[in-house]
């Protein structure tokens, strides 16, 4: 059944949508979209490392993204620069260094477009295995840290005062972010992965009145985007990663009508 490249792509996308749905909600709630971008940009370094050292791309990207996250935390402690400046510094310098390193690796032919925008149709059965097992582990860990993470998202001091250890939850969440980028980099590429995290969650925010609903709608939105995006990329012969993100944008625009309605009701 996984012989067909399109079926593989579909299952890869579905697996990723299950993970980006809930994580994307936290990215929106905790205002981490630029943080997600930074980790994604640093993934290019991870990919080059994978090629030079002959490692698995997902594992290599995961390692580099985790290191970048650690460096960010250290810089936040040691400097007085604002968070977004530090994120920008890390995002663009790691992207630049990644591209420079690629220039040196003349013996390997890189598909730069595939790296930047994803190549879901090239997903192998090994990739599928990584996506589904990795995704399952990410979701399980997220479920375990849900309470402290969510409570500290609402109010840090409340969570700390009532003994939930929010700092540990935040550190684990950072690692989960690195992991989700690692497993989805091949599908949507490093420039679009944050879109996969944010757009379905933003769509879900428009139509939800509780956190649980927002997570569920965010997953559904991601799944629909993958299916719609992939089929339309087949139909119109467009590139698949951007088609998925474009499909999620269409869903977001549709969700705006729901907002308009509820605002009208309130008046």
């Amino acid at each position: 059944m996984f012989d067909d490249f399109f079926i593989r792509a579909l299952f890869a996308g579905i697996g990723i949508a299950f993970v980006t749905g809930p994580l994307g909600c936290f990215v929106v709630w905790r205002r981490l979209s630029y943080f997600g971008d930074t980790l994604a940009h640093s993934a290019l370094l991870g990919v080059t490392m994978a090629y030079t050292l002959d490692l698995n791309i997902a594992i290599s990207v995961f390692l580099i993204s985790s290191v970048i996250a650690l460096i960010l935390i250290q810089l936040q402690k040691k400097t007085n620069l604002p968070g977004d400046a530090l994120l920008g510094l890390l995002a663009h310098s790691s992207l630049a260094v990644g591209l420079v390193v690629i220039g040196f690796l003349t013996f390997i032919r890189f598909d730069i477009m595939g790296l930047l925008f994803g190549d879901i149709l090239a997903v192998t059965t090994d990739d599928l295995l990584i996506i589904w097992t990795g995704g399952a582990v990410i979701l399980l860990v997220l479920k375990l840290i849900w309470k402290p993470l969510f409570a500290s998202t609402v109010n840090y001091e409340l969570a700390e005062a009532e003994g939930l250890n929010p700092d540990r939850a935040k550190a684990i969440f950072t690692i989960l972010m690195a992991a989700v980028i690692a497993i989805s980099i091949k599908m949507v590429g490093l420039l679009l992965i944050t879109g996969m995290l944010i757009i379905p969650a933003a769509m879900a925010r428009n139509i939800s009145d509780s956190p649980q609903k927002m997570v569920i709608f965010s997953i559904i939105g991601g799944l629909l985007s993958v299916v719609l995006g992939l089929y339309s990329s087949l139909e119109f012969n467009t590139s698949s990663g951007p088609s998925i993100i474009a499909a999620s944008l269409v869903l977001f625009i549709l969700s705006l009508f729901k907002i308009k309605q509820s605002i009208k009701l309130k008046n």
Partner: protein
Amino acid sequence: MSSENSTLVKLNNAGFKQNDKWLVEGVSLTVEKGKIVTLIGPNGSGKSTTAKIALGIYKNIEGSVEKYTNKVGYVPQKISIDWTLPLRVYDFMLLTENIKDEAIEEALTLTGVIHLKNKNLGNLSGGEFQRVLIARAISKKPELLVLDEPVQGVDYTGEIALYELIKRISDTLNCGILLISHDLHTVMTATDHVVCLNGHVCCSGSPMDVAKNNEYKTLFGEQASQILSVYEHKHDHIHSEEGEIKKN
């Protein structure tokens, strides 16, 4: 020994410094089961800081804090809910602990906001939100309650009813309460021990002792000490949550 066992949290000469400026220093106090300790003092005197030291929110403190319970309910002074979070009162009640529905409803009924259970948190008024905050803190049946200006924004009759409720909770749950108030007058009946802060402990003792204290008078003005006479007249009746007056 028995007094040791009933101690919930104990501050020994505790203080906290931020950017080389002492927010508060040299605070020693003990909160015991079934007792209400009230912190009073002017703005910026370190009341909230002291509460956060007691809660263990600040890590690098001077002195020491001994905490003997993990069942804590906290009503912070300032809390803003982000619009990006779709959060109903019901979800908020479950924030730090999974509580049974009956306990949630009981707590919301006690603070008079049960009708708001499914409302979005962002649409509440200041007073309604305070009542939800108190309900959340007490629904956990905590051993230690820390209430930082818990009735801010609540109307006057509601204020008195909520203090009566806090007193009742301390009696029925036998929990210790650390209460912060800027107004000694309204918390007087409910308080066992008052600590008056002004960057350090300026005086402490029973509510009566503190009201008579000269340092308290200079901090709060002559008028504040006149509450003693007001106080004696004021409490010949109690208010129910609906604001009805019942004779004692």
